[in-house]
């Protein structure tokens, strides 16, 4: 069993990062010019890392499968980014952000990494503002904040409902500056097909040009994987259609441990599934829970009347509504963390209170907020606070200014006006806390191979808090990896450029080409999507919001059988020398078909409930998740051994020096 050394620096928690930065090896500016780094993925983590590494002087090659780096799925993040600026003077601090993140992650993340994340969070905001990111401001010209789930302060910076796009455009602009200077060579519409190891070190990748189909070799002194999460293993998720696990899975197959694959975030507020044709699910930002109240009818007769279209939700009296989050969790109310809110919605819907035809939807209602804001505005403007029509109009204007684009998106998809009738929402797969195992330096268990952003596992434990994904992506890319990678590369200043005409590259390329031919020659009877949908159904039914031993064992068997059928019966049309989306997709689904089985195995092994991982066997009498700290305060890092069922478990014990591990309560 390979040993897992997390390389956490010694010393008090709050000094670890500063001390570590002061003592690690550096590469001189002249030598940085001699070193090549490959970055796979151009979301917040990949784009920020590429830009910063190039600014430092390294030669960077960046790869993305989209037609432009700006389209990576970080672009779709809506709500905001956390930072411990304490601009609101509401008692925020680095420690509090650190503590909230550890607690939010249900005590399953690595303390030292999370503290570092909280420390650098404030720099991110300074950096983004300097780049011209147009964050929301108040009338005094200063930055505005709002609140997100699982915390009691307002530390979230935002740019209406498209914070992700604005931050990614900031990182992309920093990349553009370096592309213009020739320090980044950008490979759009390229997919990483495999990692190449030379003497046990990551020394390059095999990539495929998705337009021409050409298989290419790229050498480098280090490879950074910033390819995002694997939520698409569920087929239906809020991820982009192209989001995939393949880069992470390829390095796993080459020796990188894969950590906590079963830690998945099911986001409580997404637009419900409308039919079998559904290709993806759309998120409604968590920021809506600042003002929206979640409820279902109290009486089952009202549920039936609503489903039959005989009753409209706006007609239901206050006392006939069950605001179940406010009822169960009075301290945090509608702003409980995502895992808690999702399970509570499932509990109500499973009990028969779902409000749409499928029985899988609850209301998110803005009527109270519209009246509250309307009265406030009427008061400010000296108008009649008792004029219901006026108050409603004024209140709707405020809500529009805060969430206008989200409301518009909802109306376009559902064809209902959320200013007049409550939104219908249901949980959907959104984010994966699990990912490639990395040490404190963000290096995987392969020397010279790094994983950053959602692709790694390190910061969010078993549940991520809202507005923390953007924070982690940019922290890793701007402020952590560019320093820690120098420690490794300091030994490479005399290596010279990496040759790609070697037996290692020959072998890796041959394996890639063989796999492509395997898909094209299969000529089976089912499309790639057929398998992806089947896999997604197994995952959602047996590895979704609630899991049990029997279901997980079945999932492992079912996924293995599906994978075997896929290799025999998949039908991939076209050739390998053209723009062939089906071929690209076949490779991605093949990797999901392995990951899915490991996911189930990991969930089966972890018999406790924690964060987004809910084992039915481990719950309190009130139905809350019950952790088992004695037996499971560790990271499950899996070593690849061919078949996912044969993967070997390595444990990284989690030690909490600064924080007392407690039962997580939001009541």
């Amino acid at each position, binding site marked *: 069993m390979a040993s897992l050394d997390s390389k956490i620096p010694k010393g008090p928690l709050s000094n670890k990062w500063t001390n570590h930065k002061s003592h690690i090896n550096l590469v001189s500016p002249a030598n940085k010019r001699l070193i090549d780094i490959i970055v796979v993925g151009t979301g917040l983590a990949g784009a*920020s890392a590429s830009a910063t590494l190039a600014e430092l002087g390294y030669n960077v090659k960046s790869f993305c499968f989209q*037609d432009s780096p700006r389209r990576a799925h970080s*672009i779709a993040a809506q709500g905001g980014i956390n930072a411990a600026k304490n601009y609101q003077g509401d008692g925020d601090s680095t420690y509090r952000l650190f503590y909230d993140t550890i607690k939010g992650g249900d005590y399953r993340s690595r303390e030292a990494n999370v503290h570092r994340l909280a420390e650098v969070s404030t720099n991110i905001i300074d950096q983004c503002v300097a780049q011209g990111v147009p964050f929301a*401001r108040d009338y005094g010209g200063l930055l505005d904040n709002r609140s997100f789930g699982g915390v009691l302060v307002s530390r979230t910076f935002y740019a209406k409902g498209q914070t992700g796009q604005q931050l990614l455009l900031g990182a992309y602009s920093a990349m553009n500056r370096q592309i213009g200077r020739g320090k980044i060579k950008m490979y759009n519409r390229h997919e990483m097909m495999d990692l190449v190891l030379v003497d046990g070190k990551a020394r390059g990748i095999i990539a495929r040009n998705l337009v021409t189909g050409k298989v290419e070799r790229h050498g480098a002194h280090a490879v950074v994987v910033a390819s995002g999460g694997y939520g698409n293993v569920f087929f239906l998720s809020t991820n982009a259609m192209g989001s995939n696990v393949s880069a992470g899975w390829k390095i796993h197959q080459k020796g990188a441990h894969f950590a906590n694959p079963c830690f998945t975030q099911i986001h409580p507020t997404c637009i419900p599934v409308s*039919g079998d044709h559904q290709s993806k699910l759309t998120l409604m930002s968590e920021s809506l829970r600042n003002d929206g109240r979640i409820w279902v009818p109290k009486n089952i007769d009202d549920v039936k009347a609503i489903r039959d279209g005989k009753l409209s939700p706006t007609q239901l009296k206050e006392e006939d509504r069950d605001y179940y989050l406010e009822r169960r969790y009075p301290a945090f109310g509608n702003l409980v963390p995502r895992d808690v809110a999702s399970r509570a919605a499932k509990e109500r819907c499973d009990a028969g209170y779902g409000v749409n035809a499928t029985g899988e939807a609850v209301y998110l209602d803005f009527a109270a907020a519209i009246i509250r804001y309307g009265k406030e505005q009427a008061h400010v403007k000296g108008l009649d606070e008792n004029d219901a029509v006026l108050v409603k109009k004024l209140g709707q204007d405020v809500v529009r200014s805060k969430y206008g684009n989200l409301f518009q998106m909802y109306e376009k*998809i559902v064809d209902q006006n959320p200013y007049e009738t409550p939104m219908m929402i249901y949980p959907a797969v959104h984010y994966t806390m699990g990912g490639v195992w990395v040490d404190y330096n963000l290096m995987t268990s392969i020397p010279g191979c790094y994983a950053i952003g959602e692709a790694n596992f390190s910061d969010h434990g078993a549940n991520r808090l809202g507005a923390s994904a953007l924070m982690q992506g940019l922290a890793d890319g701007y402020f952590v990896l560019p320093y820690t990678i120098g420690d490794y590369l300091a030994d490479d200043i005399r290596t010279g450029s990496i040759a790609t005409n070697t037996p290692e590259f020959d072998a890796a390329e041959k394996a890639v080409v063989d796999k492509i031919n395997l898909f094209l020659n299969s000529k089976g009877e089912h499309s790639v*999507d057929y398998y992806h949908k089947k896999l997604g159904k197994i995952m959602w039914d047996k590895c979704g919001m609630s899991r049990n031993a029997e279901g997980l064992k079945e999932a492992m068997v079912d996924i293995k059988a599906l994978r075997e059928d896929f290799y025999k019966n998949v*039908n991939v049309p076209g050739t390998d020398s053209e*723009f062939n989306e089906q071929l690209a997709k076949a490779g991605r689904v093949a990797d999901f078909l392995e990951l899915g089985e490991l996911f189930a195995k990991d969930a089966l092994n972890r018999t406790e409930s924690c964060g987004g991982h809910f084992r039915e066997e481990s719950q309190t009498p009130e139905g809350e998740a019950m952790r088992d700290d004695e037996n499971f305060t560790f990271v499950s890092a899996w070593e690849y051994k061919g078949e996912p069922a044969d993967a070997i478990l390595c444990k990284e014990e989690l030690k909490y020096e600064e924080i007392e591990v407690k039962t997580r309560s939001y009541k």
Partner: protein
Amino acid sequence: MMNLTLKIWRQANATTKGKMVTYPIENVSPDMSFLEMMDVLNEQLINKGIDPVAFDHDCREGICGMCSMYINGEAHGPDRFVTTCQLHMRKFKDGETITIEPFRANAFPVVKDLAVDRSAFDRIQHAGGFVSVNTSGNTQDANNIPIDKHDADKAFDAATCIGCGACVASCKNASAMLFVSAKVSQYALLPQGKVEATDRVLNMVKQMDDEGFGNCTNTGACEVECPKGISLENIARMNREYLFATVKG
């Protein structure tokens, strides 16, 4: 449920000639998005042994800017303030014939079928779409530069551009002025961007011309079809910036 006739542009790659091909499609639900309808068509084509229709798409929630279909003579189809992925089939009628083409412009060569190469937009931004600040984190505190809320809001409105290219596809001259002006405006309105404003506008406009985009003749079609409602005001602002920069030389 609806039955439709689709007329779709098929073209194997940038160097071959393309043509319109007709495909019938049945049982289309009004709740489907346009791209979900295309998924259903492709599934049918694959099962019949016909090459599926290539089209660009990714986030399917209207923000990545990747989807790019020219539907019944309009970029992103008949609805307003939506990308193709957010266009729903309820906007069409049973029995209708729908014509689907790629975004056409000399600067956007066809990759395959409905997918085009918009890397010209990237190159325009390499020329100046940034503030020259290093990502060291050693900048001043974010609240040291208060910004007038109206300017901040206008900069934000310009920054909402998703780079889809609908403006170019909608313009009879295939001009990229709305796109470039949105980028120039975002920075011109913010103090952080003012330092390099002169070089930025000159360099970005030069690159835009080099890429082969056409001239702006103020027809305003771009603004109408823009899924994010980017305003023509930005073009006026860029023209002022450009004039000022040229005079300043």
